[in-house]
């Protein structure tokens, strides 16, 4: 294990457009705004950026499009595209590139106009001839198959899943920037329209626009910048399949492996995490990742969630921005798990702030439970 990377790099700037419904703004407009905000956040400029990391649903050549628009002179770039987890793959790649001197200032960025462009999930051409003829609802039916199997093996209920959405909404109600706020009841979730059993409309994430960006530097440089650095204590990634039929066990994701790698690099375990962000594309994903990352035993996610553990005033603060279910979900949400983790470590979260948050875990998912990436971030006190 590359334990030597622990704390060597830090997230020094974050940018979040918070434009969840912005007609007339393209994915690249959202991305550029987020990049500018992230650089201004730490006091660096576009001319300082020499490493570019990006992925978008709307282009197969994101590095070229972004470098041209922002006028970047990059000497290192990575356009890895593994769906919504791409940006945490980029973070691991950036940490490595910074360590080896391939770049000095890494910019990781994303933008989407999914809502204002019509609400459909834009995906790059990637035909799946062994699935398409059966007309699974993409990507919902794949997650539905995982949820159905989890229910069969462990007795997980639709009520358990509804409680994930309820907790997310309760957090969103503490976040003035969340897109979906207001009262929500378990009964409303359970009576929501069924899309692909057992997943209802209310089990699905929002569809929004949005843009986000991170600036990452080596730790020695981070200390001199404008905001308290969020040190990268550990990262881990894993890939298990493309099509849901090729996933070895639908109740256990490759988050087990990405999590194990991140914990090993950070030298800590789940009991030492103060704040958790897991990619909630669907209510079932929160449950699966909490199990796979060791916050509760496999099969006990339903009971853990329905105990109130992840809601405000629970024992484990999860998805405190309101998550993909109630804060925002612009196509590929992964980068926003990091944004909220950094905000919590900075103590900048107002009413939803977790007092004394020193270590945060952000986890992102891509494809249909296909790619998994985990990052553990810490304040200066954790070095």
């Amino acid at each position, binding site marked *: 294990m590359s334990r030597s990377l622990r704390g060597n790099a830090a997230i020094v700037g974050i940018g979040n457009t918070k434009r969840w419904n912005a007609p007339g703004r393209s994915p690249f407009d959202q991305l550029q705004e987020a990049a500018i905000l992230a650089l201004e956040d730490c006091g660096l400029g576009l001319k300082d950026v020499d490493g570019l990391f990006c992925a978008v649903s709307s282009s197969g050549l994101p590095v070229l499009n972004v470098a041209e628009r922002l006028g970047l002179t990059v000497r290192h770039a990575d356009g890895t595209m593994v769906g919504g987890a791409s940006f945490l793959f980029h973070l691991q790649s950036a940490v490595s590139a910074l360590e080896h001197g391939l770049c000095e200032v890494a910019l990781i960025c994303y933008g989407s106009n999914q809502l204002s462009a019509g609400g459909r999930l834009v995906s790059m051409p990637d035909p799946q*001839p*062994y*699935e398409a*003829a*059966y*007309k*699974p*609802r993409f990507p919902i*039916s794949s997650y*539905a*198959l*995982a949820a*159905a*199997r989890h229910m*069969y093996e462990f007795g997980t209920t639709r009520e358990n899943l509804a409680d994930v959405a309820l907790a997310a909404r309760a957090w969103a109600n503490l976040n003035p920037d969340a897109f979906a706020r207001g009262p929500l009841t378990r009964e409303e979730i359970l009576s929501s*329209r*069924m*899309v*692909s*059993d*057992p*997943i209802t409309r209310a089990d699905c994430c929002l569809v929004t626009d949005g843009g986000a960006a991170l600036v990452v530097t080596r730790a020695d440089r981070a200390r001199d910048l404008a905001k308290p650095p969020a040190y990268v204590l550990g990262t881990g990634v894993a890939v298990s399949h493309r*099509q*849901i*039929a*090729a996933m070895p066990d*639908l109740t256990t994701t490759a988050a087990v492996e990405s999590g194990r790698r991140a914990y090993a690099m950070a030298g800590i375990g789940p009991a030492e995490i103060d704040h958790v962000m897991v990619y909630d594309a669907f209510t079932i994903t929160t449950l699966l990742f909490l199990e796979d990352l060791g916050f509760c035993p496999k099969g006990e996610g339903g009971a853990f969630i329905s105990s109130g553990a992840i809601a405000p005033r629970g024992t484990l603060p999860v998805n405190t921005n309101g998550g993909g279910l109630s804060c925002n979900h612009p196509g590929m949400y992964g980068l926003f798990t990091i944004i909220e983790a950094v905000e919590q470590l900075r103590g900048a979260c107002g009413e939803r702030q977790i007092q004394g948050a020193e270590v945060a875990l952000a986890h992102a998912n891509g494809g249909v439970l296909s790619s998994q990436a985990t990052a553990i971030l810490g304040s200066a006190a954790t070095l």
Partner: protein
Amino acid sequence: MSTDPRFDGPGPDETWRSALAEGRFLLQQCRRCDTCRFPPALVCRGCGSPDLAWKETSGRGAVYSSTTVRDREGNYNVSLVDLAEGARMMSRVESVDPDSVHIGMKVEARIVHAPEPLVVFVPAKGDAS
């Protein structure tokens, strides 16, 4: 030409489609470790060997997971089926109400033409559920 003769001829997807068009449902089985895989590819998913043989499936399997897609045009089933040979595939269980398809249900393959040839499943004889 100095190509590697192990990979001569049509690729595995083409071989699979051609057989299906002739009414045969094939799987690849590894000559080294016996693992069966689906969809077709050049190497064994179990051990990485490129030495794969085609074999006709029994067509028997069991539902590993199942969902009913709610559609304005009518609800339909989408299932993952574990074949007796060990491979798993996406398909659908036909000829029964989609809501009655359940995990563990024993099923048998049929090739239908929709209009392209397609592998679907029906409840196995003797599976009263």
